[in-house]
């Protein structure tokens, strides 16, 4: 892995007596999108605000581009998209972009070139005169991203940028983000949406104040010692109690005419098929590939069940 651009080491933070983050460490390399996944209130926004120098951690260290926020100019070299719309709704697309270009010290000619480029990349050329407040949710987020990119940053911090955005616009936003990643920008992307986490290069699961699991989406979706099998058939519901009692089956998640089974690694499709013959001959078995979203949800269900 290349030398990380964003590095958080043992970061802890508390709001008064409430400990929000405890010893969080993570690193984001150039050209990498790191998905910070967690439920609402898990501390994602707090961690991002610490990562952009807007909050000072109680303990730990944050470095971006090898520098700490003790250097006040660092904040101007990173881009941050906060939760919610941080731009000016009564200013047009062009005016918002010009304003941020001026704040980043771009000359008049450089501003024109940069705005033209960003408008082309975001597909907003036709909306330059439209007030930001009149844009659709997806367009607003694209504009916010364009403004954040005005400084040509090497590190970006995005806090749930696609919340409330329709699926089509969300896909367009991700295409845009992929282009930014290709330029070698390190991106820390906070989201509660597991569907989005699967698009990230690496994912950290923020839970109870710390990164509980970390890895690529494929790594995270694979649960050690288990794999998944799908059992389908017209009477699968009636067979559920029997399925739960089969040797090697740990958990059963029914969905329509299919039941997903978490089985131990020594249980293969053939063994399962033979065991099913005694229950219902019409049941079919196939191996399924893990899905991050499903895995996480099932793990949460498992933990909840364990807690009673």
């Amino acid at each position, binding site marked *: 892995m290349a030398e990380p651009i964003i590095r958080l080491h043992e970061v802890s933070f508390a709001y008064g007596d409430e400990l929000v983050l405890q010893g969080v460490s993570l690193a984001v390399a150039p050209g990498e999108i790191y998905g910070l996944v967690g439920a609402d209130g898990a501390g994602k926004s707090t961690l991002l605000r610490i990562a*952009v*120098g*807007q909050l000072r951690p109680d303990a730990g260290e944050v470095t971006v581009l090898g520098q700490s926020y003790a250097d*006040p*100019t660092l*904040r*101007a070299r*990173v*881009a*941050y998209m*906060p939760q*919610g*719309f*941080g*731009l*000016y*709704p*009564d*200013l047009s697309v062009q*005016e918002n972009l*010009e*304003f*941020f270009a*001026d*704040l*980043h*010290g771009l000359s008049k000619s450089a501003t024109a070139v940069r705005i033209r480029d960003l408008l082309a990349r975001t597909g907003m050329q036709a909306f330059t005169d439209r007030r930001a407040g009149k844009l659709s949710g997806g367009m607003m987020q694209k504009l*916010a991203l364009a*403004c*954040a990119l005005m*400084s040509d940053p090497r590190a970006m911090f995005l806090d749930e940028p696609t919340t409330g955005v329709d699926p089509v616009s969300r896909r367009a936003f991700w295409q845009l983000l992929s282009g930014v990643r290709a330029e070698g920008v390190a991106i820390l992307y906070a989201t509660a949406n597991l569907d989005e986490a699967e698009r990230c290069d690496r994912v950290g699961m923020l839970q109870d104040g710390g990164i509980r699991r970390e890895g690529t989406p494929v790594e995270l979706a694979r649960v050690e010692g288990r794999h998944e099998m799908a059992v389908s058939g017209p009477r699968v519901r009636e067979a559920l109690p029997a399925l739960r009692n089969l040797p090697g089956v740990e958990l059963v998640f029914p969905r329509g005419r299919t039941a997903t089974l978490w089985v131990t690694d020594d249980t293969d499709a053939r063994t399962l098929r033979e065991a099913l013959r005694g229950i219902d001959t019409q049941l079919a078995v196939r191996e399924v590939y893990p899905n991050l979203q499903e895995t996480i949800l099932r793990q949460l269900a498992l933990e909840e069940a364990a807690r009673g």
Partner: protein
Amino acid sequence: MNFQHVRAMARKEWWHLLRDPRSLALMLLMPTMLLFLFGYAIRLDISDAPIAVLDESHSAASRTLQARFDASHAFTLRHGYASRRELREALQRGEVWGALVIPPDYARRLQQGQARVQLLLDGVDANTARLVQNYALLVLDNLARETGQSPALALQDRVYYNETRESRLAIVPGVIALVMAVIGALMTSLTIAREMELGNLVMLRTTPLTHGEFLIGKLAPYFVLGMVDLAVATGAAIWVFDVPLRGSLVGLVGISAVFLLVVMLQGALISILAGNQLLASQVALVQTFLPAFLLSGFVFAIENMPVVLQYVTYLVPARFYVSLSKAIFLKGLAPWMLWSVTGPLLLMLAVLAALTWRRARRLGLLP
């Protein structure tokens, strides 16, 4: 200080102003409205006050007396009352503000130098009653002098700076202070709170913008508009209300700029501390408009206030500006001739600038 940053902030603020018709109307129409409202509504003198007359003397002397009252621009006499009861009823109905009773022996006693007339007053509005009384005394005093009945010790007075004793001349310069206090503080109190409320500040924190550039860029457009308001208000004072500008225009503009900055900084500080527009506007109104109206000496003389309140007025910037504004308009003085008044205003400017600057550092922008 990066001028490009300041210009960007100022231009953005200007766009906000132009696109918010309510703010723009407030900035441009409110000064004129306040000026005309206060300029015409607040009168500390009377004109054509209706006075009922009951002439029981029916003499040449009583007719002369009535003619004197009639000739005064302050009174309009109403006749046709037959008894004191009718006079009291007229007062009760509010038809007249006062009633003049000339007794049957008025002419005879006048010759003896012991004449008495009675003035009945509607005391519900004590201030107006006092004004009617004073004007009536003035008429009687003048008549007594002309008929050779002046007292042994006579006061010969002469009024300087406002020879015709028109309250308008004193009030209008005070209204300018009120206008600038309201516009300056109210508008700036909203501007920073809006950035905080809408979350724009979060984005600005990841730019090279410093808190100083932010503050100056934010306040600059309001300063320009405030000075335009000053020009409009001064023009109206001179050409509409006939208030003479005897002092230096440069001095007036200079000290007005200082006062405007003071109230704007007050507004900015309130804005930063409040953090939301509703609270900021309410605090600004209570902190600037009310003291400027009640405690500046604009309408009510500070010397007549309770001692504690008199000390409180030293915290009100408008107190000093009203005093300077009147001195420049009517006495022809310049701000540098009144250091006891200009000094505190400059001190307030320095203190508020330091406080606001310090507080703005906590906005999280670059130092």
